[in-house]
């Protein structure tokens, strides 16, 4: 499950909520779904927050392209 992309985890989570909403599943199955749902929700939150948010520039003047931090003027942001 850790390998899921955010959108995949979100889609699964939405599907689980939808299944639970139909209310036709046995309690035991609902609880299982609930557990997966909780794990998926946590994964979603984690994926949302784990991104680093770097701003870089790809420089390729001399041969192999390299990444460097891109300095943004603060007043522009």
């Amino acid at each position, binding site marked *: 499950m850790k390998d899921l992309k955010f959108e995949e985890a979100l889609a699964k989570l939405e599907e689980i909520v939808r299944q639970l909403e139909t209310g036709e599943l046995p*309690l035991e199955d609902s609880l299982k779904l609930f557990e997966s749902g909780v794990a998926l929700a946590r994964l979603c939150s984690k994926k949302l927050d784990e991104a680093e948010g770097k*701003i870089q520039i790809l420089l390729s003047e001399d041969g192999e392209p390299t990444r460097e931090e891109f300095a943004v003027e603060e007043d522009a*942001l």
Partner: protein
Amino acid sequence: MHILEVRELTDKIKAALDKPELQNVAVTGEVSNFKHHTSGHMYFSLKDETSRIRAVMFRSRNRSLNFVPQDGDMVVAVGSVGVYEFSGDYQLYVDWLFPAGAGALAIAFEQLKSKLEQEGLFDRAHKRQLPFLPRTVAVITSPTGAAVRDIISVARRRHPGINLLVIPALVQGADAPASLVRGLELAAVQPDVDVVIIGRGGGSFEDLAVFNDEGLARAIVHCPKPVISAVGHETDVTIADFVADVRAPTPSAAAELAVPSYLDLAERVKYLESSLQRQVLDRIKHGRRYLAQLERSGALRRPGERLRPLRMRVDELWTRLVSIAGQQVEGGRKARDVLVAKLDALSPLTTLARGYAICQDSTGRVVTSYEQVQPGQELTVRLKQGRLACSVLKGEEK
């Protein structure tokens, strides 16, 4: 009187025409009798109401022409007047040809547009979907222009966690298309780049025409990652806009398209998480009512430990529910209090521990009435330890 040969006379005429004012002249007129010969040379006439002059534009010259002249086109031709000895014609040897009025760039734009359109490069079916949550957004543009600043600013505001990778490129001048194509090639091989924005801020028609380049158009189509074009202002339309997977009216708008709003996503997750809790609480309430009903019906005559695993499971989930509620950032404590209150209200569920069985049909549906089953139907009865496969003998109301 000296009698000249035709060749001699022709030479004199050539010499007479070889004057600075007939060399490198610009003349405007309407194209007629245009022929693009298989040799590659173009033959036509330029005319106005009263006059006409033959014209030729050799292949070496017309190769760089970015439009195809047609009869009736008003053009400006730049060239030199000379004599074609073989037919005795004087004619204009054209070095450069521009459409008058519409403008060379506009004509070139329309011609390239219809050419690529006919090839199917604008088809919606080819367009790739933008990623839901990109890891890295590549921005191919001038690193010093207004566009890059706008894009970074909007992207940061929407989701500070998304990486941005600026890939510098020239966005004006003759070298710009090749530079932009190189940028696309670099973006294509960056494994973390999930979407590409290519563009520049506003400028003159000539400045933006860099994005009307055929090679660039093809590079955009062939880029393995989704490409958002973001050229100039809302009203500026370039060939890049037609071939891109998504056209953004401005660089800022491109950033909005590429970068999802963190708040929207976080709220969606939070909403789903609370739906989960609500659903499960509803289920537990429902189960409690069902158990109460069982108790009242007196169907279970052996109170004991049978449902302990289920109760333990439910307890465990309660704990998790409480812990999740406690973790919610906004109103965490309040949500937790509400939930704990709810759970306390549900405490009769502990009667589960006294040992009941759950009867389910083959689809897993809980059987709550004799009317739900037929004699002979197989049912599963869950016990504290394991389950029983049973067959219905008969159903009775009491």
